[in-house]
């Protein structure tokens, strides 16, 4: 088909051609730009850090205490705190604490101090911990102690007299390997022991200097625990640009303040309240401007997101997974003391067991759980048996829940949280072994599941506060950040609203594709740029026919789950048709059996469409092996023996790409490759005559068939790419001026 070049004008972006009459393209782009610029004007970051607000309060002599009109909460009980001299004493680490309660009437000192587990998955809050911020850089590396390697013991042949000889030989082999490692370690030890004293001395000097903050121009970064996988938390960086932290820790320990009423509804602009006397916070420490909590919208269970921010752009989020509510908990347990002393000998068992291989009667209510405690106690106690109530969790035939609540005594007081083996007898049949959590009673029951993490709805209303205190402080933190957020109830979410932007983009993309397809159906001429590899495909097939040699089509080593393999199958159909028309032969070796069956059908269909169904040879499309390099070796063998004139590599390739391409080049075949594996593209480009790069592989079926519907989807693809490039361009400009609204727009929420 000819292309009237006078009708089309190519703009300087390669691969993106716009016809003269496509004025609407620029209109769309212009509208997008005009929409984005006002957003930039509106979404300016808000005011300064809150330290300026808190700093005046501290300088007035009521450090840490923020007084509100009409609400002198702690003023009468908190003695005056004099401003300490700002002499550098030592570096103090500060941490955030999260306080939790389901009863907001409790005084803040009686709220639970919770741990923050840096994970986004279901997790149960356990012991109190923290995440905090401290000086990190530079940190001299401790060379450690000098440990001499130990020589491995040679196995005695007499010990293996009654065993097969291979076992002794294997033992000797392992010993020889271990001895070689030992010799290498000895060499390394000898050289390391010479330099170790020097390293140790250097480390001590650097550590001393580091502790004394004598590094010049040192920038201290305060951020959360370094092992935090939650990237959001890492964004909440408290950056100090001073050389050292000046803090006086010579203040006395805080006294017991007694019961302090919780002031709910405190306005957000009074962020910090001191609970007891405490040294002042660093003057340039950025405190969170706001702290709130909400039900997570992207989980299938009862998770609550705790969020705080220091500015509009810094957000830290962690997750709290509340425990399921107890069904028959007596009310007296709720009145447990603040610091109960639990009996180490009392335990509670909650067990959830797998029973996939047992037919569970619908009316089953009798499960016998046998807990083998001998492994724990070790004092000859007989296994305990008790019957529990069937709580069916999940599918009735998949797993069963045994919920037993009772106490029994174990003599060993050291037993804490252990996982022990448990078997359940259900309707007289034994199940697989399950897991049973044996945990101490701390005033509230705890449960553990050995099914996939499942969090049921929690009907409690949860309240949180954010506190700040020094690293070594125990108990309620002395600075509490007030917030007026109401309590939150965790609930199951049917839809993950954190991915709303992904859904929106996909829907818009689909609309664009369908629109272009509809235009194609109406007969609009759609231009597609030339792709050299596809243009020469017919020529390559003709070459093979003239030479009387077969065509080798390698559909990659991916499975049918890979889109690249599907694209390869689409190309195979077109190629098979051409091969049938030319009366040639095509060989298709496969690594995956499912891909082989699809390839057989596609090839056969291609021959049928060409009108030569009798020429199709099913044996030419075959399975080789599922092993990567075995497949490579086999295909190399085919190339060397059958000497195809044309080799097509289409689909997903990995490390074997260069081996295949080079072997094919060595046989003198013309090679055309197409893959979306970025790391293999250089190899194909080097060794093959033509290469389809990335999306050209997906455009191949449309390009070869020239079907209007497929061409329409191709144009939709190009339009989406143009829009993304426009967003990129605008986003780069905005980011240069410190505005990341576009990057946040494309990030998923969490």
């Amino acid at each position: 088909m000819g292309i009237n070049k006078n009708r089309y004008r190519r703009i300087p972006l390669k691969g993106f051609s716009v016809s003269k009459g496509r004025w609407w393209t620029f209109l769309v782009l212009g509208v997008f730009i005009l929409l984005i610029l006002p957003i930039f004007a509106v979404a300016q970051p808000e005011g300064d850090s809150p330290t300026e607000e808190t700093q005046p309060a501290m300088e007035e002599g009521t450090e840490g205490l923020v007084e509100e009109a009409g609400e002198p909460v702690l003023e009468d009980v908190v003695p005056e705190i004099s401003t300490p001299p700002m002499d550098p004493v030592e570096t103090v680490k500060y941490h955030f604490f999260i306080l939790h309660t389901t009863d907001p009437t409790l005084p803040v000192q009686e709220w639970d101090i919770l741990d923050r587990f840096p994970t986004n998955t279901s997790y149960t809050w356990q012991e109190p911990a923290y995440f905090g911020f401290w000086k990190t850089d530079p940190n001299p590396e401790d060379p450690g102690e000098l440990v001499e390697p130990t020589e491995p013991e040679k196995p005695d042949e007499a010990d293996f007299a009654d065993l097969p000889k291979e076992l002794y030989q294997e033992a000797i082999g392992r010993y020889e390997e271990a001895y070689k490692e030992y010799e290498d370690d000895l060499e390394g030890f000898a050289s390391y022991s010479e330099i170790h004293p020097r390293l140790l001395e250097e480390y001590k000097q650097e550590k001393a200097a580091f502790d004394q903050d004598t590094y010049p121009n040192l920038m201290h970064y305060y951020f959360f625990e370094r092992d935090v996988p939650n990237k959001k938390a890492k964004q909440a960086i408290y950056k100090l640009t001073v050389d050292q932290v000046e803090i006086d820790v010579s203040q006395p320990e805080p006294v017991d303040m007694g019961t302090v009423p919780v002031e709910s509804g405190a306005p957000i602009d009074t962020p910090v309240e001191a609970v007891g006397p405490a040294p002042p916070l660093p003057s340039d420490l950025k405190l969170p401007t706001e702290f709130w909590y909400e039900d997570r919208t992207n989980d299938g269970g009862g998770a609550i997101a705790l969020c705080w921010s220091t500015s509009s752009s810094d957000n830290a989020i962690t997750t709290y997974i509340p425990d399921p509510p107890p069904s028959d908990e007596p009310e007296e347990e709720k009145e447990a003391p603040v610091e109960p002393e639990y009996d180490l000998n009392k335990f509670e068992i909650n067990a959830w067991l797998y029973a996939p291989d047992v037919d569970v009667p619908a009316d089953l209510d009798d499960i016998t759980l046998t807990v083998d405690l001998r492994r724990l106690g070790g004092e000859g106690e007989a296994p305990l048996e008790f019957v529990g109530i069937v709580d069916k969790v999940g599918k009735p035939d998949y797993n069963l829940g045994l919920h037993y609540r009772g106490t029994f005594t174990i003599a060993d007081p050291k037993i804490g949280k252990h996982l022990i083996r448990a078997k359940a007898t259900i309707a007289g049949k034994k199940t697989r072994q399950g897991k049973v959590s044996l945990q101490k009673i701390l005033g509230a029951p705890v449960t553990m599941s050995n099914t996939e993490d499942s969090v049921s709805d929690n009907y409690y209303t949860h309240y949180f506060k954010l506190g700040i205190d020094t690293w070594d402080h125990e108990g309620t933190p002395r600075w509490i950040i007030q917030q007026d957020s109401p309590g939150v109830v965790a609930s199951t979410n049917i839809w993950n609203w954190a991915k709303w932007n992904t859904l929106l983009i996909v829907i818009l993309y689909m609309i664009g594709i369908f629109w272009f397809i509809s235009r194609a159906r109406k007969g609009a001429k759609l231009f597609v740029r030339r792709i050299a590899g596809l243009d020469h495909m017919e020529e390559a097939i003709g070459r093979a026919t003239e030479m009387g040699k077969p065509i080798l089509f390698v559909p990659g080593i991916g499975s049918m789950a890979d889109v690249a393999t599907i694209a390869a199958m689409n190309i195979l159909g077109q190629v098979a048709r051409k091969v049938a028309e030319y009366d040639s032969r095509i060989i298709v070796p496969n690594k995956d059996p499912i891909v082989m069956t699809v390839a057989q059908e596609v090839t056969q269909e291609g021959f049928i469409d060409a009108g030569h169904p009798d020429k199709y040879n099913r044996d030419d499309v075959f399975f080789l092996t599922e092993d990567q390099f075995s497949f490579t070796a086999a295909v190399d063998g085919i190339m060397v023996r059958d000497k195809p004139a044309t080799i097509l590599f289409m689909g997903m390739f990995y490390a074997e790409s260069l081996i295949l391409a080079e072997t094919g080049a060595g046989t003198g075949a013309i090679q055309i490759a197409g893959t979306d594996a970025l790391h293999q593209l250089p190899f194909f480009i080097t060794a093959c005559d033509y290469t389809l790069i990335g999306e050209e592989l997906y455009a191949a079926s449309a390009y070869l068939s020239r079907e209007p519907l497929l061409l329409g989807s191709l144009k939709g693809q190009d339009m989406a790419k143009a829009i993304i490039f426009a967003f990129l361009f605008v986003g780069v400009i905005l980011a240069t001026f410190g505005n990341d609204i576009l990057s946040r727009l494309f990030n998923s929420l969490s």
Partner: protein
Amino acid sequence: MGIIGIILFFSPTQTAQALRNDLSNWGRIILAFAMIVGIYSLLNHHYHKLKRKVPGWGYSIIVYVGMIMMVVCGWTYKIELPEREEFGTWSPAKQELLLKMNGARFVDSEEERVRVNDELLTRDLPPKGVIDTPEGHLDGLEIVRRVPIIWLYDFIFVPMQATMFSLLAFYIASAAYRAFRARTPEATVLLVTAILMMLGRVPIGELIWDKFPQFTDWILNTPSMAVMRAILIGVGLGMIATSIRIIFGIERTYMGGGGD
């Protein structure tokens, strides 16, 4: 099914996750049956080669022999653990070797046994690999040792795999020799960049100029990364478009059907 797959991506409920797991399991089951078809295809392919005595038919015999040998060796030959009393009389080295070869673990203290049990149960592994201290019992532990199959794997299969993989180094050298020639301006740029990258990755480059490694990192992390990401964007869009075409039946070539 395509629409369901899209919905499952956006739904975090346990039902959706369970359905997703079920779909994955279905795929594995289909793959298992497809493997039977694949093996039949392979054997049939080589049978025809043998029957027609095409050049290279000797390799087809090797295929048959290798397959039969692996299957037979895998099914046969196992030894069982002796009675606990006899096992207890073995030396620690002998006991440990037998247990290590079979993925078991020998514990020599109560605390370690509890700890290992916990660890195995935490990972949903049955504690069959842990043997009690002599005061306890073996609990029906069985050790299986397939010597010939492991010998075949360790000394034939793995070296051959390593051989194929090691060919890459030589092929890279030959491909670089062919590709890095200054015939065109683009090829010259490629040649110069390749030389700079190679120098930056070896110690001598740092000796020549101490900033070489940083320069090569910059090449990788800035211009090269930019181009890779651009290609990735195109690939991603292409994948979505192809998937949409398949889901909505616009393209059915892969099923053996036409586009309309």
